[in-house]
């Protein structure tokens, strides 16, 4: 009796798989025979409102997780792009130097006196205040006292020379003193008078001994007229004037035309 009961229990256990099997075979056969379109439509009609939303949500989460898994790959790509960017930046820097050199050469070629001999040099930086170091020296024919210019603008005088490096004293230096002429800003050919410029050691150049009767104004051009340097180079413009009633002279300040701190290429006049 007990044995028979156990057999009944075992039989019941197999009922469920058999039901699944029968239904599975039935539906699968209908599917293979393409006879389940009505069932298919009914199932979709009932279940689509429930399944589509969850499917979309699942895809969104999957995309998000995919992005998280892709972070190391993106990081690698970012690093390689950074390297490329650095390469491009260095190329751009090189091209801008070439452009600047090209522009400097154009300025230099426009000089009135083309008989002068110039040596092109690149600015390496400042050694002390109001000095500039360039990458040309004795090997290029540069000597102490040579004039350094950029186009018509005065840059400084060579004060120290080694084989391949020279040091230039800028007009801002306290040791710089030049005789100059002042030209009207309205008519550049109209020379108003003479004066003396002295470096202040700060961010301006002092101009002294301008005759009160000269009619000098702020904005007038200061042109070098000194035997130490090449003639007719522009030092800068008068930026400020001070008149002392007790004196017959007017003093003032001059600012250079070119920004000496941003120079890249300069030209050293070795013969004039």
């Amino acid at each position, binding site marked *: 009796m007990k044995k028979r009961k156990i057999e009944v229990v075992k039989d019941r256990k197999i009922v469920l798989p058999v039901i*699944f099997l029968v239904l599975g075979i039935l539906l699968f056969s209908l599917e293979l025979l393409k006879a389940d379109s009505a069932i298919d439509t009914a199932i979709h009609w009932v279940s689509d409102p429930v399944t589509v939303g969850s499917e979309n949500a699942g895809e969104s989460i999957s995309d998000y997780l995919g992005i998280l898994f892709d972070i190391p790959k993106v990081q690698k790509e970012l690093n390689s792009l950074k390297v490329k960017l650095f390469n491009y930046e260095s190329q751009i820097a090189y091209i801008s130097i070439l452009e600047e050199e090209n522009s400097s050469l154009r300025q230099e070629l426009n000089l009135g006196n083309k008989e002068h001999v110039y040596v092109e040099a690149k600015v390496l930086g400042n050694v002390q205040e109001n000095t500039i170091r360039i990458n040309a020296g004795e090997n290029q024919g540069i000597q102490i006292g040579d004039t350094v210019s950029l186009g018509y603008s005065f840059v400084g005088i060579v004060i120290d020379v080694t084989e391949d490096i020279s040091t230039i004293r800028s007009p801002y230096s306290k040791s710089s003193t030049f005789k100059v002429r002042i030209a009207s800003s309205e008519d550049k050919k109209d020379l108003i008078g003479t004066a003396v410029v002295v470096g202040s050691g700060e961010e301006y150049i002092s101009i002294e001994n301008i005759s009160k009767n000269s009619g000098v104004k702020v904005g007038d051009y200061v042109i070098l007229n000194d035997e130490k340097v090449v003639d007719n180079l522009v030092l800068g413009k008068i930026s400020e004037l001070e008149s002392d009633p007790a004196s017959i002279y007017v003093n003032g300040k001059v600012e250079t035309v070119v920004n000496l701190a941003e120079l890249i290429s300069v030209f050293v006049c070795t013969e004039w």
Partner: protein
Amino acid sequence: MVIEILASIVGLFALLSIEHLFISLGFFSIWAFLTIYSYQKLHSPFLWISLILVGGALGSTVGIGTGTYLLSVAICLLLLYLIKSFIPDDSFLAKYLPYIFIFFLFYILRDVFGEISNNGVFPSIQWSDILSFTISSIVSTGLVILIDLAYVQFRHNGGISRKGTGIEIRRR
């Protein structure tokens, strides 16, 4: 009775929804897990009717052919029945190792029947598919173990004497 019917209807749609969510995420089949796990453990007719209805619908909604899910799981359940009939499950491995095999077989069969149903050809199963099926099978089996352990813990805390692991159906 009415509440059970209503709960079954709600559960049916919830299961459909969760199954689709899991498929989109590339997880294991929650329907296969419930069906295989509940076999010989739960005997509620409402549960089994719901599982059969969901299984019938899934093949169609997932797009791998109506009856694919039911047929795949039917073969797995038959095999599980045979394993449980001939191999005693008195050790941990003997109890849970068959589950890994059964779940793995379900994923393989679902793939095979789905391809036959859609294209009439036997699918070319890649190593990546096998790896994915293996992981899903291990995760499903892990879940079986966790539920069994939780049930044992629950029984222990409730003061009922502990006898083996898992849900046991006792006949009086």
